[in-house]
């Protein structure tokens, strides 16, 4: 991480003001500017800079899979050889039914899996079919896998990455 990635006080205020969402008004950046007490131009420059540095991944809409009829979300977890994990991860990440794919540490002997892929489908059967597609893609590198379906949401707050201070 370089010094330019570190957010200053104004950046922080922009994050706090937008982490619940962008204002739904014709001039949202102007609206934020008034709330924060700087010019709209400054807000837009800062947000552009945060986009370029990757602090903001993107500005946009996050669909709710569940409400939109994709009720069979399953976390598929894979044991692949460590030297193949990047190649396997990229293969999986390119699939349009996978929303997240990560290389994570194993916890042997309890947890042998090092590759995680969240798979979305209309129901469990569809998720299972899609996981079969992944198994086919990985071939011999997919040494073992499981699908962990969610039973219940115990807590879901927006990712409040920055509190008011």
């Amino acid at each position: 991480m370089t010094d330019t990635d570190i957010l200053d006080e104004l950046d922080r205020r922009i994050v706090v003001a937008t982490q619940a969402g962008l204002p739904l008004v014709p001039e949202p950046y102007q609206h934020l500017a008034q709330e924060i007490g700087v010019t709209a131009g400054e807000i837009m420059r800062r947000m552009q800079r945060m986009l370029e540095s990757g602090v903001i991944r993107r500005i946009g809409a996050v669909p709710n899979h569940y409400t939109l009829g994709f009720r069979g979300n399953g976390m598929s977890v894979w044991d692949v050889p460590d030297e193949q994990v990047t190649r396997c991860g990229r293969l999986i990440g390119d699939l349009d039914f996978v929303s997240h794919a990560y290389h994570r540490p194993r916890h042997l002997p309890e947890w042998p899996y090092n590759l995680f892929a969240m798979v979305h489908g209309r129901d469990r059967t569809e998720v299972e079919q899609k996981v079969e597609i992944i198994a086919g893609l990985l071939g011999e590198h997919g040494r073992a896998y499981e699908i962990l379906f969610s039973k219940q949401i115990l807590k879901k707050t927006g990712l409040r990455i920055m509190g008011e201070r």
Partner: protein
Amino acid sequence: MDSIDRAIINRLQDGFPICDHPYANMAAQFGIEESELLQRLERMLEKNQLSRFGPMFNAVKMGGGLSLCAMQIPDADFDRIAEQVNAFPEVAHNYARDHRLNMWFVLATETPQRIAQVLAGIEQVTGYPVYNMPKKEEFFVGLKFEIRSG
């Protein structure tokens, strides 16, 4: 939900402009008025078809900590432990999953160092070990999710 709603969801996963009148700019692409786009977004957020509209932040790039954690909790103890875990403000999402490791949650903290402290706190309060699984590499984030009719 009609074809314009679906177009909005599909197109707005790609990004949103930073300019004086971004909604007017996007509305023109859908062939609708700015006010109609705002109403549609408001309605889809209210109905929870969209869980969010706005900037998506990368907690790690912001200097924060983020991790996925799992625990193995006996059924008889599950609700009590869930309550204890959820009481930590750093626990952002928590899911019950049908596996031997049956509780999975995301920790989001203001600094990377804080992850270890919160984990230790959860282990101390609950008396159960926490498996920490921070990402080592990320291959894709943010679904390109085509909503189709029917």
